[in-house]
């Protein structure tokens, strides 16, 4: 059950880009900061919203 709930939480964090942000911090050896989140979010959204959303 705990594993299942963890899986759900991970999925929600993936959809919410929180996991991607953690990977970004880890890959570039960075610390979380408001400026870093804004930089990350801008770049991610640029790519994300250049693609069609499904009907």
């Amino acid at each position, binding site marked *: 059950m705990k594993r299942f709930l963890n899986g759900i939480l991970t999925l929600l964090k993936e959809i919410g880009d929180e996991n991607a*942000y953690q990977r970004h911090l880890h890959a570039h050896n960075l610390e979380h900061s408001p400026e870093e989140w804004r930089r990350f*979010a801008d770049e991610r959204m640029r790519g994300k919203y250049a693609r069609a*959303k499904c009907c």
Partner: protein
Amino acid sequence: MKIVWKLVWMAVAFLAALSLAKIATERGEPVNSIWLVLAAAGTYAIGFRFYARFIAAKVMALDDQRATPAERLRNGHDFEPTNKWIVFGHHFAAIAGPGPLVGPTLAAQFGYLPGTLWIILGAVLGGAVQDFVILFCSMRRDGKSLGQMAREEIGKVGGVTALLTVLLIMIILLAVIALVVVNALKDSPWGTFTIAATMPIAVFMGLYLRYWRPGKVLECSVIGFLLVLASIFGGQWVAHSATFAPMFTLTGVTLAIAIIIYGVLASALPVWLLLAPRDYLSTFVKLGVVILLAVGILFVRPDLQLPPITKFVDGTGPIFAGKIFPFCFITIACGAISGFHALISSGTTPKMIAREWHAWPIGYGSMALESFVAIMALIAACALEPGVFFAVNSPAGAVGATPDAAVATISSWGYPVNTAQMESLAADVGERSLFYRTGGAPSLALGMAHIFASTGGGRAILGFWYHFAIMFEALFILTIIDAGTRVGRFMLQDLLGHVYEPLGRTSWMPSVILTSAAIVLAWGYFLYQGVIDPLGGINSLWPLFGIANQLLASIALCVATTILIKMHRARYMWITVGPLIWLLIVTFTASYQKIFSDQPRIGFLAQAEQLEAALASGKVAAAQVAATNTQIFNARLDAVLCAIFVVLVTLILVDSVRIWAGVLRGVRDARLNETPFVPTQLRAEEI
């Protein structure tokens, strides 16, 4: 396979076959919805385990030793090897839109049987295969898009045609889903207030995420969700307020103008302020509601009130005109086979897959799940009494301009309903009237509300659930409108950049404003056209969208077949050629009928001629002459657009067949644009 598993699969197959037989042969008695659930789930399971596995192993020869783009191009952003169930959820959330909810609801006018069979078989043999094969093709090409693959594997004509087709489809898609929202909110102060409130809530969430609690997406979404729930209760108060109710009671035209203005603003505002926070919220709500609906249906197990087949299979249906063939297969696109999915399967998903075999559950399984959502929407719609279903979904032009005339017409079809019953239902859900609420969303919301309320609370909370369902549908439709307008703008800039270079720059403000306005005006025009259409707009626009979407699927299947042939898998090309031939027959027949049918309710040209004749004979009142001229122009415009779709797809088809013939005869190079094999270095614990 062990004997135990053989027995299990035989039992699943038997149960699915029994359920299909039950729903196909039952006459007279209402069928319980659990049979649909069992038929669908069993068929998906068999399709997934045997057909999809055969495609994975024999046709595509998936190889877990081969490094995927997620591993080779890992950058921590788009390219990242991810757990397969996470990618599954992500992909499902991306492909599931309003289509599988609205299409089956509209197609229920033929009864529950045609839609059910098409949704199940279409997905197992067509839609899921398309999604799976395109996902595989993109995964073997560094996550390239459908357009890029069309250009590389078929040729330049294919690439440009695919881009143009997607742009045109998007314009029709945005118009038709905006029309669904307009029809759901027309004269509904409760619904209009709730949806209007989601905008400041999204802006609040945007600011919260940007400045107050950067990076806390889940936390922010929970707050946003609670605020949206509060706005539903607020909407109830507004609807009963003598001061505020009139402010939020809007006509279809006013709502259309509001959505058009909103489209321009949303396209120009920074993404983080409105689009992104609402996208997060709508995705979470979407997943939650899908799970809630599944649990509700399993708990309540409603009987289907609509008959298996209605008299409207002859083409005289009030919701949209046209016979069961081809229009049932056009009306239900998403849920059975949707070309738009090919854009997602060649978008983010192939960049996240860690092992090639993960594409099996992600590509095929996600589509099967979406198809299941379509079945649930069909159940929700068919659980309504037929008289109520038709009263809500039929336009005044088809059933009569007054409620008394409408109930008399609908009752004469053998689906009894009366005005007192409709008034009582409207009062229960907090609406002034439920007549002429075309578009599918209100009847779906009504069906969902009945299911949710039956789990506890009863009639007392029917209004809350109805508006919750309307909010849920409108929330992600508006997100699609925001994102679609933006993507349409990028595509248009891409095309215009070849004419004048600065127009192609996404950072050049004059180009941004010009192209945003062009895209919004394009879909806004079709939206306005739908709102003023006496037949409710859905009759013209939804089939046009269905045709366009299925034609996009045809393009995807052309690309997939080309790649299979180049992979020397021609003996298996039937897996994509089969659905392709079916789609071409359906879409070309539907297009021909929509353009040339001599029945004005079906054929655009016949409709224009009928209106012209009425004008010429002086039957049109002076005040209506301008509107009639607009309708004549719109009917011809729809005919031209439909013809353009067919020409574009014919171009790609001819180009593809030329390549297939060349490769099969050995006179053309079968060079694949696949990335070379690189062995994986990923350890099991990394995924």
